[in-house]
């Protein structure tokens, strides 16, 4: 068979497939998806491992309340919603005063429309290499910055506000929702930080009801349900009807105060950044001796988690490969049946002069075109999967 005959056979194959477009498309999709899924799963696992380990490796040590190390690390690094125990915020000062490390507090109990509200030190943004893309950072309690994804998803930006979630509908003693002023939006970081709200630690304490500002009683002196009277010393007495402000304005900040020593107020975790390897060793030894706190190394904890994920991923990939083989067998059967159904057509081709080689080339070309289309589709699906976050699995858990 010469080249012209080959091209004619391919042309006939293409026209046949095009004539049965729906059937051909279904075959391409079935083959393509069967080939793509194991590749996508494998790719997600590998990228997930790289990204997850990168975030864990960039977080030298995490300190929190005694309990599960995995919960602590996932909470402190991925802001997962599972409640964590708390430790007093004085732990931050104890670590920084040692001169061995910097400590970044994390208050993780609050949410705003389901998104994590991370109360922290403004230095956290530097530590995570988070840049302000629009507006400015938070400067005082009541202000916040949004991660890029959250801002885009909610259509929020500097000058807007975001309301925190109430602690519980039945918890009348809990904190009031606080309206946070958005002062900036972070540049995309392709990390959990993209979906979070960042504010000052004191803001989180106010959300949790550990501190508040008060209405100026002069403003409500004509409201008897709010103002009960005047003390012997001439001080106004407010009733329980007086509510904390739901928004902290610069003027109201003058009256901001906390119930108790701020050093005793809770944080859910803190990121510890030792000065060097020697400082890390000394500090770790000191912290591990303390029973009231837990020290976790995210790189170790996450490596253990990933090991389990790998086992599940390998199992899943095996199942998908088996499914792909079954799909391939079904497709082969469909093609074989198709040839049987086309016997009259092939006989006609033979009678008008097409040789066995031409007919074989025709059938083979159809298979090659279908396989090529499926491969192209599989590659496109794989390419599309790269738009998914690297740490998709952990994000889905958030």
């Amino acid at each position: 068979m010469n080249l012209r005959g080959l091209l004619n056979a391919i042309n006939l194959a293409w026209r046949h497939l095009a004539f049965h477009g729906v059937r051909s498309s279904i075959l391409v999709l079935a083959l393509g998806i069967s080939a793509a899924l194991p590749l996508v799963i494998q790719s997600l696992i590998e990228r997930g491992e790289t990204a997850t380990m990168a975030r864990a490796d960039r977080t030298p040590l995490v300190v929190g309340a005694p309990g599960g190390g995995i919960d602590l690390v996932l909470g402190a690094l991925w802001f997962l919603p599972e409640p964590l125990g708390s430790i007093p915020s004085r732990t931050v000062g104890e670590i920084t005063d040692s001169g061995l490390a910097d400590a970044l507090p994390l208050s993780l109990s609050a949410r705003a429309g389901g998104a994590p509200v991370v109360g922290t030190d403004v230095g956290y943004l530097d530590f995570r290499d988070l840049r302000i893309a629009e507006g400015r950072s938070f400067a005082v309690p009541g202000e916040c910055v949004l991660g890029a994804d959250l801002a885009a998803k909610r259509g929020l930006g500097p000058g807007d506000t975001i309301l925190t979630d109430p602690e519980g509908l039945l918890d009348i003693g809990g904190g009031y929702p606080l309206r946070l002023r958005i002062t900036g939006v972070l540049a995309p970081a392709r990390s959990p930080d993209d979906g979070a709200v960042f504010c000052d630690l004191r803001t989180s304490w106010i959300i949790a009801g550990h501190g508040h500002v008060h209405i100026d009683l002069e403003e409500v002196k004509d409201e008897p349900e709010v103002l009960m009277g005047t003390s012997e010393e001439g001080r106004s007495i407010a009733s329980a009807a007086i509510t904390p402000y739901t928004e902290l304005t610069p003027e109201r900040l003058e009256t901001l105060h906390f119930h108790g020593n701020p050093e005793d107020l809770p944080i859910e975790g803190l990121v510890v950044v030792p000065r060097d390897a020697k400082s890390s060793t000394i500090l770790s030894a000191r912290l591990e001796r303390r029973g009231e706190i837990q020290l976790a190394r995210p790189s170790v904890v996450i490596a253990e988690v990933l090991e389990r994920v790998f086992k599940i991923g390998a199992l899943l990939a095996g199942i998908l490969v088996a499914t792909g083989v079954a799909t391939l067998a079904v497709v082969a059967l469909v093609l074989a049946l198709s040839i049987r159904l086309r016997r009259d057509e092939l006989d006609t081709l033979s009678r008008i002069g097409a040789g066995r080689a031409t007919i074989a080339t025709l059938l083979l070309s159809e298979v090659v075109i279908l396989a090529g289309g499926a491969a192209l589709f599989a590659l496109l699906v794989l390419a599309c999967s790269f738009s998914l976050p690297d740490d998709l699995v952990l994000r889905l858990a958030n």
Partner: protein
Amino acid sequence: MTTNHAPLLGLVAGALLLAATGCDGTSGEPRGAAPEASGPPTVFADNFPLQSFAQVMGGTEVEVNSPCLEGESAVDYRPTPEQIIEIQDASLILLNGAEFANWTANASLPGSRTIITANAFRDQWLESTHHHHHDHDHQHGPEGEGVHDHAHWASHTWLDPNLAREQAAAAAAGMQNRLPGVSTVGIRARAEDLMAELGALADQAALIRGLELPPIIGSEPVYEYLASACGLDLHEADWHWNEPTPHDGMESLRNLVLATGARHLLVPSAPTAERLEVLRELGLEPVLVMPLANPPTPDGTETFTTLMGRNLDQLQALAPGQSVD
């Protein structure tokens, strides 16, 4: 033969369209470090003593910012959120602590680059008898539930040369550890000179403590640490001596003069002619002792140690038989 290419071509076109539009969910935003500020590293100091220490120790290798350098009062400074953002960008933030500069209590400052210089001697803080912020003291409900009144600390810690030396040491440690690209050898050498000067001031304070100084009245509640360092028999007037209407009234001051027999009034700056006349009618001689939260003049070039030395000279001269050039 009529061929229907539409479904197959549609599949290919759809896939290509998906690849072109939907696949690239990334913004393409480069993830880089925050832009590095050009020029020397900056140090922010919230009052004059720390500003002076940073300038002396940093020399020309650092740029020092402070409200004092912009003609603002360090005591009354209330930065806007935008100014706080500028302060956040400093390589090192030196705060006095001991409740000096109330704005720092509600400012979001990076803890790793912030040094509260008075924290090292927290056990030596002195309680202030003067309440500036009564609005913090309140109770919830008539039964007093949730009372959270708390002590206020005297904040002019630097007027005790020993404490000033500790604050300078904290600042020096921070400058050696936290300033990128600055020679630690140079800072250490200049810090040693500064410590020697502050040590001489501490010695002079100890000398004054051994002298028999007469009772003294302080015109403003800022001299607690000076009194402690120099062993002064200091009586607080809280008179707001240079205001048009004295804070506590003339009668209370007159009674204080009678009760203590004091003949000297510590004043933070030279009194007006009218005030000087009032003081002399009371039998009081003003003694200029600068609180030094701010420099005497915004563009002055004298260091804290020079001015503090002048303060101590003024006190030493009050002792019988003492005179200072």
